């Protein structure tokens, strides 16, 4: 009776019967017998229940000793690994996972320094990205390298702070969090697309990748969060002051970073280079940098009362 119940797979009933049978046994140490034998099904299955779902490793389970179930388990696991390989391969085609890992190779010191530069970029002297045999160095080793950790964390924190700000004005509802999140995300994507379009139109030969642009556009969330928190703590004048400071900081940061990437060598060093091409590139850098404060104000002013 025990065996048929076990093989039917109805575990709870099986367990009840196991507990009853173990109480009935005079020798409790039989529960911890060697389970290499295939016969003592109830004890093996009971230990399986105790030890957790490790069905494959422990031999002697009544519902696994059946060769059909063995086949089924092996087939299922091979299907699962095949599916996982296929997902990995296809996902790698659309989202370059290995490249993304580079952008998350950060550590605490880098994050601290970068946040400092984002809020106060006026003392930073050397803005060049170090290269190592044509590959840009990981952000952990170079403060000027763009990363995706700060933008991601900034985005999530922005949504949370926006929810907090709405809550203090009794305007909060859970759907609004989702609305804010999707709205900010789509604005970010639109901005990156607009920058890509303008880079294509001006035919700039640059090694800025799309993810780099995403990182640069995401850095403004830091300033937005500072502005909103100041506005929450100290009122509207503090919001305007801190937003002004952060807007100026992001403007200077973007200009100094993009200048090295977009402009030609001579113009980047500050010499005046004539010619429509360099002028156009200068205007492009200015407009990308000027778009950041506009977005910072546009996405935060509705949160401050």
């Amino acid at each position, binding site marked *: 009776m025990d065996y048929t119940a076990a093989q039917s797979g109805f575990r709870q009933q099986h367990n009840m019967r196991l507990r009853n049978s173990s109480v009935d046994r005079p020798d409790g140490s039989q529960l911890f017998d060697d389970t290499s034998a295939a016969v003592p099904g109830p004890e093996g299955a009971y230990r399986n229940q105790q030890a957790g779902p490790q069905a494959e490793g422990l031999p002697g389970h009544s519902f696994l000793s059946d060769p059909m179930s063995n086949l089924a388990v092996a087939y299922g696991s091979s299907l699962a690994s095949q599916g996982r390989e296929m997902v990995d391969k296809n996902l790698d085609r659309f989202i370059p996972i290995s490249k993304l890992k580079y952008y998350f190779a950060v550590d605490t010191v880098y994050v601290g320094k970068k946040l400092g530069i984002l809020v106060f970029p006026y003392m930073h002297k050397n803005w060049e990205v170090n290269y190592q045999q044509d590959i840009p160095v990981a952000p952990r080793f170079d403060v000027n390298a763009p990363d995706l950790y700060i933008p991601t964390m900034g985005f999530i924190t922005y949504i949370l702070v926006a929810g907090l700000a709405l809550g203090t004005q009794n*305007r909060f509802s859970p759907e609004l969090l989702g609305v804010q999140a999707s*709205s900010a*995300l789509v604005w970010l994507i639109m901005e990156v697309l607009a920058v890509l379009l303008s880079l294509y*139109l*001006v*035919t700039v030969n640059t090694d800025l990748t799309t993810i780099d642009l995403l990182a640069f556009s995401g850095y403004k969330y830091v300033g937005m969060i500072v502005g909103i928190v100041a506005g929450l703590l100290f009122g509207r004048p503090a919001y305007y002051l801190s937003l002004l400071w952060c807007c100026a900081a992001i403007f200077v940061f973007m200009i100094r970073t993009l200048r090295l990437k977009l402009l030609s060598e001579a113009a980047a060093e500050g010499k005046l280079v004539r010619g429509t091409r360099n002028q156009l590139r200068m205007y492009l850098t200015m407009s990308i940098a000027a778009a950041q404060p506009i977005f910072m104000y546009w*996405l935060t002013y*509705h949160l401050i009362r």
Partner: protein
Amino acid sequence: MRITDERERRPPEHIFPPSATVLCVIAILCINAVAVLHEERFLSKIGWGVDQSVGGFGDEPGIKVQLMNLIRSVRTVMRVPLIGVNSVCIVLLLLFG
């Protein structure tokens, strides 16, 4: 008098920046606008046809040439997907307003 001044100075309560759906509709409308520009009847008339873009062979394509190429490629690539996207958009707007 003071109370009305306070209310005028604050931004109205319902002002949020456009939501994600509105932005997507804006994008779809813009791409539609680019896709309906006709090559012969309109673009050539104002000197923006692609046959007029083969210019200098220097390293400077210039913004106008880039724009013309962009318009042409958007029209070629997006014609068919726009049918599907527009249909989905129409159905969703009818159902959910």
